[in-house]
């Protein structure tokens, strides 16, 4: 019986080709579904991040900056996560680091200095909600959001 099926299959290449095509399509569907699942994982990852990062964001007037990574660079440089395009700001001005469940701000030896609640910082300082960070003439306020960015 088995041999007859194999012989029939060998004698009809169209069948074999069709089955190969089905396998490819099936595997592709499988990959597509995994891709969709990874989209769901992204949303789940956002929720986890909101918990990890306490949902902290920086606000400057109408603009909100979500803290989406464990290290956030503030400065004039094009690679900075939060760009402060002012002459008083250094290219690499300050960095926010999430460590041990707290957001800390560290001045990177900037010329103009980094001020938290009006006090210039010289060593890393833990941030709390409503703390005001001043860089040049720009003031960024620490607020608590849902871990979502403005665009979401």
């Amino acid at each position, binding site marked *: 019986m088995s041999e007859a099926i194999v012989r029939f299959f060998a004698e009809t290449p169209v069948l074999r080709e069709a089955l190969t095509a089905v396998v490819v399509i099936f595997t592709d569907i499988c990959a597509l579904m995994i*891709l969709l*699942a990874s989209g769901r994982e992204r949303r789940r990852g956002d929720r986890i991040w909101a918990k990890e990062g306490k949902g902290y964001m920086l606000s400057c007037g109408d603009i909100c900056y979500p803290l989406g990574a464990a290290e956030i660079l503030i400065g004039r440089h094009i690679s900075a996560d939060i760009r402060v395009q002012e002459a008083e700001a250094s290219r690499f001005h300050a960095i926010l680091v999430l460590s041990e469940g707290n957001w800390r701000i560290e001045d990177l030896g900037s010329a103009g200095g980094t001020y938290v609640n009006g006090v210039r910082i010289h060593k890393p300082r833990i941030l709390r909600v409503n703390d005001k960070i001043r860089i040049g003439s720009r003031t960024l306020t620490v607020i608590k959001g849902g871990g979502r960015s403005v665009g979401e």
Partner: protein
Amino acid sequence: MSRTIDPRRSGSHPFLLLLIVAAHTAMLLTVGLTAGFTPEVMKLGCYVLAADFVGSIVLQLVQRQACTVDFVLLLVLGISTIYQSCFGGAVFAMKHYLFGLMAFVMCQLSYLLVRNPYRAERLKPLWYVLFGILVLSILLFTGSRGIWIDLGFITIQPSEFVKPVFVLICASSMHTQLQKKEWKGLHYVPDNLGMLICTGVIVCLQWWCRDLGSLPTFLAVAAFGLLLRLYYLREKWSVRFMVVFGICGAVLAVAALKFAPAYVQDRLNVDIWADMSGDGYQQCKALTAIAEGGWFGKGAGNGTLHTVAAANTDIVFATISEEWGLFSALMAVILVLFLPAAVLTVPPRSYYHAGLAVGVAAVFMVQMTLNIFGSCNLIPFTGVTIPFLSQGGSSMLASGILAGFLKAAQAPVLSSAERSRKKAQGGRMQKA
């Protein structure tokens, strides 16, 4: 009534696991109908489906916030085992299957090791020590014209394990880039110096071993590591420096090509169709096999390329194409590329993990390019394997470790979460 959802649990994906089992079953059915339902085919089917079920149970038990990498790995390893079992006749490739399982385990272990980026970076001295041990083992045990250590019952290729260690060395966080030091008026970042020294050591070592085929993979990892550092803190690379750096690189590349060993020169200049029985033998056979296989292949086990040397490693793309068709071979390649691509859907939360993901993507993409383009005579033949698809224990295990890095980039665990978990565990223990 409100419902509390623990976001750390990813929930179950029975549908996905069912799809993976169904995809493997369809492939096994094709093998059975083509090669007959022999005991070997039944054995292959039982083992592949058993791995799916065990993998599913493990994933259900341990899965956390992201498991895309695990699902793709499960799918690819099953497909790879079926491919490898059918080259030139359906015989269950037990060795490849076992190494596949071990790669899956290595993926989970390496994930546990590097899921916390702070800890992974603190362990950097250990990565340098590992790198040194591997380099020494190559220098002492492989000889100047070989890359294998023969232990009698098994052969190990230590250069494959250098890849994940080198990726760990090349990844760096913004904070590490801040740690500048001065030596006689020269400012440098120790981490960057370490990476450049390791790159230099690898170049010398590969040259000494005559394993220049792997060199582009390492150089790509280093190049991407360097590229990420361009945007890191305090690395004020001027345009002038970049131009000088580029010119030096180009001069070195030209010099390397000019003074490359004779066998490399031969491969660069070989006309495969004029030397079909000599240096061009494998590529001629590979290209012919791809053409004969067409879109849908000759059928599992009906190929002839398995008689050619390195049919299941260096020219595995052509062997798959011949038996399963170009469609299937491309699908398998895309599936492997899907591993680093899936990480893009969940952006890494730390710079160190971003560096790891980029490094792994570089390894996978360069190896695939070298293998496939080499088989198709678009570039000189290098003898580099395709991750997960080619046979080879060292390559498989190293690829599993690299996949674990991708998983860590997708599902990082920062210190706060670890601390709270330890607290919770401590509380439970006290209650007990």
